[in-house]
């Protein structure tokens, strides 16, 4: 048996014979994440631009921030990256039970983050900042809302993975599928790392 055959037997999903030695799925996810940098870069830039404008109606966004609350949300999302990477490590070991436990934990932490974001939006709305109240509000809701939608899609992917695992369709030979979901999840986390600092902490 050649080295390539041996590796293919151990990791069947990595057995694609590509010139890069990487699977097309994994490379495609990274290309997608690279392109997502442009999407979020555009949304963050738009927010930075409109944050400088004086609101013609309603409160300024920086007056409404609750930093301790958002810090806890950020910490929750950060810890969900830990549980995600533990899920990837578990499936690579062939540990199905812990894979499901960590995937579910990640989904729950993600749902807590989204719930927290909905609560934050509700508070801001009650304080008088609607989506069309002023440019700052529009830019803020669009940016953080887009991020929230990304987290929600990630939760759907995580729950789908749990269901696949329960049906026995997510064995160690398909560990890369979980790894790719993990890449998306970690990307959502790193985007929030930037949003938390640039939008919430660095205020004019």
């Amino acid at each position, binding site marked *: 048996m050649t080295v390539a055959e041996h590796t293919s037997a151990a990791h069947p999903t990595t057995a694609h014979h590509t010139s890069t030695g*990487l699977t097309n799925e994994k*490379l495609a996810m990274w290309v997608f*994440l690279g392109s*997502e940098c*442009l999407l979020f870069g555009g949304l963050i830039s738009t927010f*930075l631009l409109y944050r400088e404008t004086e609101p013609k109606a309603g409160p300024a966004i920086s007056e409404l921030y609750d930093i301790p609350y958002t810090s806890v949300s950020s910490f929750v999302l950060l810890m969900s990256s*830990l549980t995600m990477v*533990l899920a990837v490590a578990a499936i690579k070991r062939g540990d199905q039970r812990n894979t499901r436990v960590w995937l579910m934990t990640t989904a729950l932490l993600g749902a807590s983050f989204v719930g927290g974001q909905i609560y934050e939006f509700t508070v801001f709305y009650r304080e008088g900042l609607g989506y069309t109240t002023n440019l700052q509000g529009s830019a803020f809701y669009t940016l953080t809302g887009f991020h929230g939608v990304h987290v929600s899609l990630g939760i759907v992917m995580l729950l789908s993975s749990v269901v696949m695992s329960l049906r026995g369709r997510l064995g160690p030979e398909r560990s890369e599928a979980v790894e790719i979901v993990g890449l998306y999840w970690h990307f959502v986390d790193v985007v929030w790392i930037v949003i938390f600092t640039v939008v919430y902490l660095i205020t004019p």
Partner: protein
Amino acid sequence: MTTTEHHAVEHHDEEHDHPSDGKYIQIALILGVITAVEVALSYVDVGKLFVPALVICMVAKFAIVAGYFMHLKFDSNLLTRVFVSGIVLAIGVYIAFLGSLHIFS
């Protein structure tokens, strides 16, 4: 050894280099500490160091998550180049965009 075999061996070796669960927990604790420092900076007057300190913390967290949790530190350099290209392109385009609107002046 063919190119495919060479890549297969590299990939096999890389898989063994991935951190243990304990190491991942340590990394998460470091991320938590950096977040705490960021939040503390919002309540302490550090003058002109405020923005640079926050940016350093942000970049450190970003790099740790991308390097260790997304495995860029252990995977093929091609993946790092693809991702960094997206980041550099985004930063370049939007700095030019914001600069043209005099946001930095």
